[in-house]
């Protein structure tokens, strides 16, 4: 009977999940997309700033800023619409989800308007034609001089969900295509010979080649259909009025050949970025990342403990309904990956209530942690012999008095170390929030990779920083643990 209740509740949880996602697919009947932007006074651009010269991060006066050709285009659009421009950063493969769930109004991220994408997204006119290159290690330049035909039976890297990925799949027989979320990671894979070549757009390939002496850009010679040769701006499906307005700006840009000037501006920023590539020069990035990682972990652990205690009490209590809810919650949360939960809170719940990425990240990590904390507390309480409760009850203490005066003070000694471990693993696991653009340590690591064109050094720095955080914390917790054991 109990089991049936659990199954039913777990099913309800999943149902809520599915329903709220389905909700995201509703299409507005009347097209008021342009009016809405004007009423709002801002237009939100989604982009994956790891794609110089299209978009990349620069550090100006200690602050991260997205720059590049796409940003210049977006600025022009915003000024023509008479609204402010806001930029949201996330991984490339999250962009279309963000568009669908209205986290962003438009996606400008070096994106090609392929027919497959056009099914779910309205595209503007093409504003830039770059072409498709392959990026290889300089030593191998001769082998791949012929472009795609030389890639047969090789390992090709491309951004997940990108046109380049599709091209490698469809036009290079026998090749193994490896997809990664960020171009920086792809470059790293190339340099460490995990892949033989990386498919990217021409301007990006050239940017990397000119900043890294060990790389060479080669024309990919792919057969490109319409919509595969250039980049366009993506909009929520059915935003005809907005697309038309934006197209006017794009036509103007094309007519005046402004992209050339944009690329020059981008080039200047890139040059500034690569002047000093020592890790110490980027300490502010890492410091900010550490700060966010600690902030997320600390708030999430408090949330986890508060909800966890409630869940544990529900699970230990006699009320069958509350018990069932607690068990279903714990099983469901522990049975699904944190990454999926993060995406669900940000994109899924975000459909109903707009929540910033940082808040969404904290909520997801906190909820995830609460299920584990509940189990830690429950097993801590269960580990106290039943004789302790009986002794307390036989002395006339009520259930609650026995719990708070006798059981909990003892249980806390078992709970504390496990809770400490949970906090430590939270610091590590919270790194997953970087996928929705929360600027934690992992995110900053990628930013520094992009900015410096150096792959491994930032990873090493982040690793050391994570270790310093967890090691310090475990020492501090160990100190308190020792103190507590000493007392009793």
């Amino acid at each position: 009977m109990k089991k049936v209740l659990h199954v039913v509740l777990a099913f309800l949880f999943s149902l809520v999940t599915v329903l709220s996602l389905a909700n995201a697919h509703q299409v507005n009947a009347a097209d008021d997309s342009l009016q809405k932007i004007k009423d709002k006074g801002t237009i939100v651009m989604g982009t994956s700033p790891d794609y110089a010269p299209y978009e990349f991060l620069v550090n100006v006066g200690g602050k991260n800023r997205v720059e590049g050709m796409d940003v210049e285009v977006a600025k022009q659009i915003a000024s023509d619409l008479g609204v402010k421009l806001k930029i949201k950063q996330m991984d490339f493969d999250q962009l279309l989800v963000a568009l669908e769930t209205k986290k962003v109004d438009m996606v400008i991220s070096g994106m090609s308007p392929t027919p497959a994408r056009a099914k779910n997204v309205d595209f503007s006119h093409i504003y830039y034609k770059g072409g498709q290159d392959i990026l290889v290690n300089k030593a191998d330049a001769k082998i791949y001089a012929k472009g795609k035909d030389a890639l047969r039976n090789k390992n090709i890297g491309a951004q997940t969900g990108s046109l380049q990925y599709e091209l490698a799949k469809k036009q290079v027989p026998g090749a193994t295509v490896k997809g990664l979320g960020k171009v920086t990671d792809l470059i790293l894979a190339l340099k460490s010979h995990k892949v033989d070549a990386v498919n990217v757009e021409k301007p990006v390939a050239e940017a990397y080649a000119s900043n890294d002496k060990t790389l060479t850009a080669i024309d990919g010679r792919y057969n490109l259909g319409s919509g595969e040769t250039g980049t366009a701006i993506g909009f929520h499906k059915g935003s005809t009025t907005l697309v038309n307005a934006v197209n006017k700006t794009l036509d103007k840009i094309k007519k005046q050949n402004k992209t050339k000037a944009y690329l020059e501006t981008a080039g200047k920023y890139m040059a500034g970025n690569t002047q000093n590539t020592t890790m110490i020069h980027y300490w502010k990035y890492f410091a900010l990342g550490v700060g966010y990682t600690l902030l997320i972990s600390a708030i999430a652990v408090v949330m986890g403990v508060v909800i966890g205690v409630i869940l544990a009490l529900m699970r230990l209590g006699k009320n069958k309904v509350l018990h069932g809810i607690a068990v279903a919650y714990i099983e469901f949360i522990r049975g699904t990956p944190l990454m999926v939960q993060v995406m669900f809170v940000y994109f899924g719940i975000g459909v109903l209530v707009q929540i910033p990425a940082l808040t969404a990240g904290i909520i997801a990590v906190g909820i995830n942690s609460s299920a584990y904390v509940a189990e830690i507390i429950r097993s801590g309480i269960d580990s106290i012999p039943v004789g302790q409760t009986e002794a307390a009850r036989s002395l006339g203490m009520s259930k609650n008095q026995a719990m708070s005066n006798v059981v909990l003070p003892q249980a806390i000694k078992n709970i504390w170390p496990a809770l400490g471990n949970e906090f430590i693993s939270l610091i590590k696991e919270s790194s997953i929030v970087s996928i929705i653009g929360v600027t934690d340590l992992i995110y900053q690591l990628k930013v520094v990779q992009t900015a410096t064109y150096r792959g491994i050094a930032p990873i090493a720095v982040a690793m050391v920083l994570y270790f310093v955080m967890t090691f310090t914390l475990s020492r501090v917790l160990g100190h308190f643990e020792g103190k507590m054991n000493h007392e009793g």
Partner: protein
Amino acid sequence: MKDNVLLDIKDVTKSFGKNKVLTGISETVNKGDVIVVIGASGGGKSTFLRSLNCLSKPTSGHVYFEGTDLVTLPDKKLDEVREKMGMVFQSFNLFPNKTVLDNITLAPMKVKGMDQNAANEKAHELLKQVGLDEKADAYPSSLSGGQQQRVAIARALAMEPDVMLFDEPTSALDPEMVGEVLKVMQDLAKSGMTMIVVTHEMGFARKVADQVWFMDGGQIVEKGTPEHIFEHPEQDRTKDFLSKVLEQ
């Protein structure tokens, strides 16, 4: 005569699932009585004792304590009644994270609202009674089993109970420590405390009990004075049990 009845037990049964542990017990306990319950393991002795203060609620029947039926009492009232029914466990169940003194003062302060000084004074008095005042600041883990059990008795007495229930208080002790605990219990009996003691210590039963109850198969098979039970048992089951126990 009725005023003298402390516990009136009526048709108490207890089942765990399909397993009937108590099959219908009706007895009375008068104020000042010392009852010793004997019987083989698995005969329901502990369950019977625990059903008296409703630590394990009877499946059916009634337990009238000073005129109130505990079985039908709401939980909150039951807590108040339990104060008056001290219990000593086989495994002592002292609170390991508290000193001896704090073990004793916890319930008087939390349940009775006694202030710290009064509770401490009372605790020291009781510790003297069980001969352990010098251990007031020790933690239970540093005490021997016999000492722990004496502290447990003091802890129960701190609530000034009207009856003391002992659930095999010496079974977990090394043989050389049994005596010190029985001595404390004997003194307690002399002081006029009503006691129900589940034990395998036949010597204690003979010496201290007003009545001995022999339990088997979830029932009280035979009861009477120690002399009756040990010298002239009538039931075969009683004889059989005693022959096994006394042989040793």
